[in-house]
């Protein structure tokens, strides 16, 4: 719930920025905000709303209700969850802080089109970028946690076909996040390194860096739209039956459509953001078809929501009103989206207020209205009290009217460019903008009613019946404590005596216990201070990096780095001392992953996102190689025999790691130790050769300031190979830790999960090198 309230806080910041913009645009030739402040407002409004409000608010709800819905005690990895939250907050602090540094915050639009964004002076933009990298890291950790929880922690009897729709859609969202966000990390890491280190990924004019950025950004950016939207659809699908009195129409069709069409296709439509960049007409046609095709599953989903009312008994209570509002707004936003899928119509609509209207209908209309529905629906479960129905209905009516007054006029502003800070009094621009600004204040004002209703419910609301909506879902089988302490919102629920929530369940696990009830040793995991130390360490370090160069920057980097190291060491020490014993694992419904352990599943999920991360970097490299007319010939820079030797060394270390695993599988701890030592030596040798190569390259003039194309080759080499080197180094550090544990007699034939998982990680690093070596040395 901390997540939920933090995201509301960021939502308020984003809304204030939006109101500032609407004030500026309310009349023509206005100078309330200068272009300098307007551009910051428009950029940070987008970034904060999308990354620090919309996604996290859904994740906040999911954090509370997914474990309840699947009958788990908590998420799979509590400390990972804490880590995810603190990273999210750290990134947000950096983003907000950026307003107060000289030169102001990022101001190149939330899309950060290059090379404008890397050329913007000041450390504000860098702060935002590194904040985004932290946020993306937070999302990746959170995603691993949710995937493993949803497939591994389900209570007995909670088979996939009984999984509530909200949990299903959170699973879909998380999967999209898992594969989309690594590309965001790659894009903003490259841009940050341009800004800090002076690499030339987006400043080299020879390789059309704008196109490289567009591809990276939108490969992430389009799935992000669905990441924002899908939790809302999950809420709708979850709660509609309770208000229509009949089951959700075509439930399985919705699941199939989302899993098999929306998810994969969302990664195959990104070029519709690039119709006018001069891509070939055939590509425009292909992406137009893909884009229009992705609307078909949404037709199925929308119509199924509508059909779910047929022959039902529709109760127009506040949650249902917001559901209906979300569906209507989604229909409008979806259809304008079909307009935008046409490359020909895009010749007029691109970069205009028509686009602004479209994505606000989807990302504000559909997503936020359905999240409001979720808030009203679940607040009785959360507080044990009922919200005020009349106030809720008034909130809906004013929100719906305000929203349409705000955004509908923008559909007619298709000749007005987005992101202009002021405009002349021509045509109907003044009239339409004036109406929109009035709408903005109506819509924003309506949200005070939501705040009032939440506060009222919290402190004064009448006690709610245990299951006010007659829901079959598991979260309503447990009861919150009626008088919650507002300072500790997450700890308000108790575990009721386990009751059979579905008749056929033989031994229901006590559903929905929160941290306190789950037992001291488990609950304590939440109170580890390591995640917050790690996150703030990383944050301070990256702040220093953003201010680089300078004494303040170095100081911050040293402090941050030290805090990070101390926290990491402390975490390892806690583990060595068994401070946090993992709770005993219970039997659950894990199809189709019965045979896989929790940690291993987590490692696989993590590695799959790592594949996308390296894939994005390597794709960027391949793009650069394709776009650069001249490039240093193979062998002219890198020593191929030395590289080959190093490849053999790393490959051999993969083999010895495998032998180490084989040893412990047979229970031979001594041989495990021996093979791990060999692996460690080989890995260190690899890194040693690597460092000597770097020193040689650096001293022979292969630097970032070398003339083109050597600066480009150097940028790509140092950053991408450096990323791999960092992974190897992390692996070596982990190996030290594992060897220490081996020496303490930790691992046995039956229990050596950590070794197995490390083996996976090490093998992955080897495989990545098998791609890097030919790409950088041989081609």
């Amino acid at each position, binding site marked *: 719930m901390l997540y939920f309230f933090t995201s509301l806080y960021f939502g308020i910041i984003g809304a204030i920025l939006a109101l500032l913009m609407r004030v500026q645009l309310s009349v023509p030739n206005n100078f309330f905000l200068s*272009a300098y402040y307007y*551009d910051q407002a428009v950029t940070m409004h987008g970034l904060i709303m999308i990354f620090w409000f919309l996604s996290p608010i859904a994740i906040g709800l999911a954090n509370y209700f997914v474990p309840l819905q699947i009958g788990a005690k908590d998420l799979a990895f509590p400390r990972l969850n804490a880590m995810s939250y603190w990273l999210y907050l750290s990134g947000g602090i950096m983003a907000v802080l950026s307003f107060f540094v000289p030169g102001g915050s990022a101001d190149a*639009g939330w899309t950060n*089109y*290059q*090379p*404008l964004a890397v050329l913007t002076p000041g450390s504000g933009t860098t702060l935002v970028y590194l904040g985004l990298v932290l946020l993306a890291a937070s999302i990746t950790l959170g995603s691993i946690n949710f995937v493993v929880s949803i497939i591994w922690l389900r209570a007995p009897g909670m088979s996939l076909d009984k999984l509530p729709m909200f949990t299903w859609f959170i699973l879909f969202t998380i999967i999209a996040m898992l594969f989309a966000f690594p590309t965001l990390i790659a894009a903003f890491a490259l841009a940050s390194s341009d800004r800090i280190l002076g690499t030339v990924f987006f400043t080299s004019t020879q390789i*059309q*860096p*704008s*196109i490289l950025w567009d591809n990276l950004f939108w490969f992430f950016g389009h799935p992000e739209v669905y990441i924002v939207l899908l939790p809302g659809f999950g809420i709708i699908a979850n709660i509609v039956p309770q208000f229509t009195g009949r*089951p959700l*129409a*075509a*439930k*399985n*069709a919705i699941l199939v459509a989302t899993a098999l069409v929306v998810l994969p296709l969302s990664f195959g439509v990104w070029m519709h953001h690039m119709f*006018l*960049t*001069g891509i070939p*007409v055939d590509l425009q*046609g292909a992406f*137009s*078809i893909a884009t229009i095709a992705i609307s*078909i599953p949404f*037709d*199925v989903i929308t*119509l199924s929501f*509508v059909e779910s*009312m*047929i*022959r*039902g*008994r*529709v109760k*127009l209570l506040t949650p249902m009103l917001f559901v209906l509002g979300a569906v209507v707004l989604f*229909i*409008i936003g979806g*259809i*304008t989206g*079909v*307009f935008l899928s*046409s490359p*020909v*119509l895009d*010749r*007029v609509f*691109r970069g*205009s207020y028509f686009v602004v209207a479209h994505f606000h209908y989807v990302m504000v209309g559909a997503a936020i209205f359905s999240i409001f529905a979720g808030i009203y629906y679940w607040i009785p479960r959360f507080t044990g009290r009922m919200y005020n129905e009349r106030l809720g209905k008034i909130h809906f009516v004013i929100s719906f009217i305000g929203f349409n007054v705000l955004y509908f006029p923008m559909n007619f502003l*298709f*000749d007005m*460019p*987005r*992101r*202009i*800070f002021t405009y*002349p009094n*021509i*045509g*109907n621009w003044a009239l339409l903008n004036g109406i929109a600004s009035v709408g903005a204040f109506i819509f924003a004002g309506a949200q005070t009613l939501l705040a009032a209703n939440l506060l009222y419910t919290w402190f004064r609301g009448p006690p709610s019946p245990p299951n006010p909506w007659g829901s079959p879902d598991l979260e309503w089988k447990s009861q919150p404590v009626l008088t919650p302490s507002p300072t500790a919102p997450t700890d308000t629920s108790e575990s009721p005596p386990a009751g059979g929530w579905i008749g056929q369940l033989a031994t229901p696990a006590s559903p929905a216990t929160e941290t306190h009830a789950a037992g001291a040793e488990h609950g304590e995991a939440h109170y580890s201070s390591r995640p917050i130390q790690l996150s703030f360490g990383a944050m301070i370090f990256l702040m220093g990096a953003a201010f680089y160069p300078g004494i303040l920057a170095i100081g911050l980097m040293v402090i941050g780095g030290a805090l990070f190291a101390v926290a990491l060491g402390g975490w390892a020490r806690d583990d060595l001392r068994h401070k946090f014993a993992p709770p005993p694992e219970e039997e659950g419904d894990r199809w189709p992953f019965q045979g896989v352990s929790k940690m291993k599943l987590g490692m696989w999920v993590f590695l799959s996102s790592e594949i996308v991360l390296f894939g994005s970097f390597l794709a960027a490299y391949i793009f650069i190689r394709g776009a650069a007319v001249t490039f240093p010939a193979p062998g002219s820079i890198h020593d191929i025999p030395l590289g080959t030797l190093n490849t053999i060394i790393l490959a051999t270390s993969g083999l010895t790691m495998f032998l180490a695993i084989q040893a412990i599988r047979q229970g031979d701890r001594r041989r495990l130790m021996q093979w791990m030592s060999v692996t460690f030596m080989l890995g260190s040798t690899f890194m040693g050769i690597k460092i000597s190569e770097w020193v040689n390259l650096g001293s022979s003039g292969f630097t970032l300031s070398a003339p083109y194309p050597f600066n480009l080759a150097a940028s790509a080499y140092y950053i991408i190979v450096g990323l791999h080197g960092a992974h190897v180094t992390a692996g070596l550090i982990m190996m030290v830790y594992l060897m220490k544990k081996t020496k303490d007699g930790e691992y046995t034939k039956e229990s050596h999960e950590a070794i197995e998982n490390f083996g996976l990680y090490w093998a992955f690093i080897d495989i990545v090198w098998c791609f890097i070596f030919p790409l950088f040395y041989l081609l």
Partner: protein
Amino acid sequence: MREFALALMYSGMLTVPPTVATFDHLLDWYLFFGVGAAVVVIGMLVTFVILYRDKGDNKPLPEHKTEGWKIVLITVMISISILAAAEYQTFASFSNIETPSQCSMVPDPCINISVLGFQWGWQFTYPNGKVQLTTEDQPLTVPVDKIILLNITSRDVFHSFGIVSLAVKEDAIPGRYNTLWFNDTNLGLVTMAIRCYELCGAGHATMVGNLSVVPYSTWQSEFGVNTTG
């Protein structure tokens, strides 16, 4: 601006340039399908809410099938047919927005003008080598009833060159040359016809230009290549 121009066109005072005709024709199709679909679906939603609202009686509800694959199939079929029809229209008009084929013929009847975007303005290079920056009294000047081919790039950051009254737009990207064409059929000066459609820094809002359409002979004497000598 465009509404005003359109109103004049429909009242017969102006003729419709081909790029605008293509856009309007296609937009009509999309509006027909889009507004139609919205009205039908939102209409269904409202009808169902009214028909099946909670009337306070406690009659038991009829049994419901949980799966309606038949309805799903119908939804998909209808969606595909509407979307395919719309997409067909897009593809049919695609050829109209590509570079006209006669421009590759010799002698070249198309007029090539280079457009360079910069922070913050546009620079035009005419066939006779004359270079002009956009100012209030230096519009982009083109001859009437001729195919104009703009070769667009940028000197610094990502811009997007658009003349919405002619329904054309193309990104101006550093290191990359993109083309668009139009054929303006109406004489006259259109103020602020040219705008930048991608945020390009503090001057984005002021990156505007006028468009002046003049008779061919006038244009030829000032900007054209003098073929006679």
